[in-house]
């Protein structure tokens, strides 16, 4: 199947690859998926505690091209948003932006789950 230009660009030049200190109080980590299922996504955010704004986001993903592109895109969208704005990111927006084919929609669901899990992790630490 042919992938969109945007998807291929995120796959070949992934944004914000890396690792944040998962024990720091201003970070949140989401780790979703399983190696047996063929995809594992780790998404991390760093939040400015005074403004509740996401100042940095990093990811690492084991998975197909769509999974990698979905998480790369998610990190771009997260930066600059408040945590509450970030919670509103919907997987279908990722599907549309990357023109994911139907068999790859689960990749966008995984990205949404990773975002929510990272934010919950941050909120739990700072409750």
């Amino acid at each position, binding site marked *: 199947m042919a*992938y969109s230009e945007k998807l*291929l660009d995120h*796959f*070949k030049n*992934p944004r914000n*690859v890396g*690792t944040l200190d998962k024990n720091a109080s201003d970070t949140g980590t989401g*780790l*979703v*998926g*399983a*190696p*047996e*299922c*063929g*995809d*594992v*996504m*780790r998404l991390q955010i760093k939040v400015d505690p005074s403004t509740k704004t996401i100042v940095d986001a990093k990811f*690492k*993903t*084991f*998975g*197909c*091209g769509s*999974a*990698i592109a979905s998480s790369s895109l998610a990190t771009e969208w997260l930066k600059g948003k408040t945590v509450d704005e970030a919670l509103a990111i919907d997987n279908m927006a990722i599907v549309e932006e990357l023109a994911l084919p139907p*068999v790859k929609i*689960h990749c966008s*669901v*995984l990205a949404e*789950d990773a975002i929510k*899990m990272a934010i919950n992790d941050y909120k739990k630490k700072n409750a």
Partner: protein
Amino acid sequence: MSKRLIYLDNNATTPTDPRVVEAMLPYFYEHPGNAASKNHPFGWVAEDAVDTGRKQIADLIGVDAKEVIFTSGATEADNLALKGVFEMYSRKGNHIITLKTEHKAVLDSCKKIEKMGGEVTYLDVQPNGLVDLKELEAAITDKTILISIMWANNETGVIQDMRAIGEICEKHGVLLMSDATQAVGKIPVFPKEVGVHLMAFSAHKMYGPKGIGALFVNRKNPRVKVTAQIHGGGHERGMRSGTLNVPGIVGFGKAAEIARQEMKDEMQRLAGLRDKLENGLMKLEETYINGAVESRMPHVTNISFKHVEGEGLMMTFNEDIGVSSGSACTSASLEPSYVLIALGLGDDLAHSSIRFSLGRFTTEEDIDVAIREVSRGVQHMRDLSPIWEMYKEGIDLDKVVWQEH
């Protein structure tokens, strides 16, 4: 200079050899006859061409030309052999034995046979992909009419011990069928020498055209018959009706002739290139070869790159190189390769596998590029992989509680 695409997916299909195409061309327009037209020169020329092709194919596998039944391909030949034997021998029994690693053409035919009242045993294989001969023999009952075991596996290239399997079948008076699609034309395959009674194969896996295949059906000691599955005129000794695909048969025959002449040298050349590819890629950490290396087709290697997902890896080089993956993401089923799972690989390693299948037109330069590009791809994917990072930190991945979705 335009970039040459490198094709390392010859187990999926092979390019048609230009010599084959050249042989076929006159049979589209100059010689348009139907081989069944017995009353004019058009028919005679077509019939002669079919006879020649049948003989060339029979010579490649050491059988009599009358024992070659043309079909549309190996899938149809598998269907004809399994369903045809099941119907023909229903009075003797209803039990068939096969392997979990067979091609879907065999497995899906067996599923259909089960719906028709048959009983099928799907045997596991050993971690090297070979059937356990004791287990095979123990599975035979007084109702067993047929054992169906592929000559060489499409995903791993593992070659079964057909001679030993033939002896077991002989001892118990059971028919032996083999899907030899991946083996014929690539390695010496002589069904009569090892006691195979029915054998399916096709032209497009041996540098012939798509749309033509054959079923070898043993005629003497024992005389094997299959019930036709396609009706309409009684062609092919009543076993497969339908106007013969004359250009296809001419091409199939030419492909068989070339394979017979060039096989010995080609096997050596390809094994050398395959070993070079394998040695180059095995320099990467945590890389595993799947299937028995001591009993394998010379042009195939199936490798798992741990903590790298197969389809993602392919995307790093698929603008230059065509290969296949056992990863679920490459298929509509979302399940990883059932063949690799049957070898006992975990789902994670099955998702991480790539099949490289070399061919007649593969060059040493292709292999150099493949080693470089695939190594680079594995590095890129591992840099991105959270589980590679965890593995490097010494975390036991089996103890991690994953959030499955």
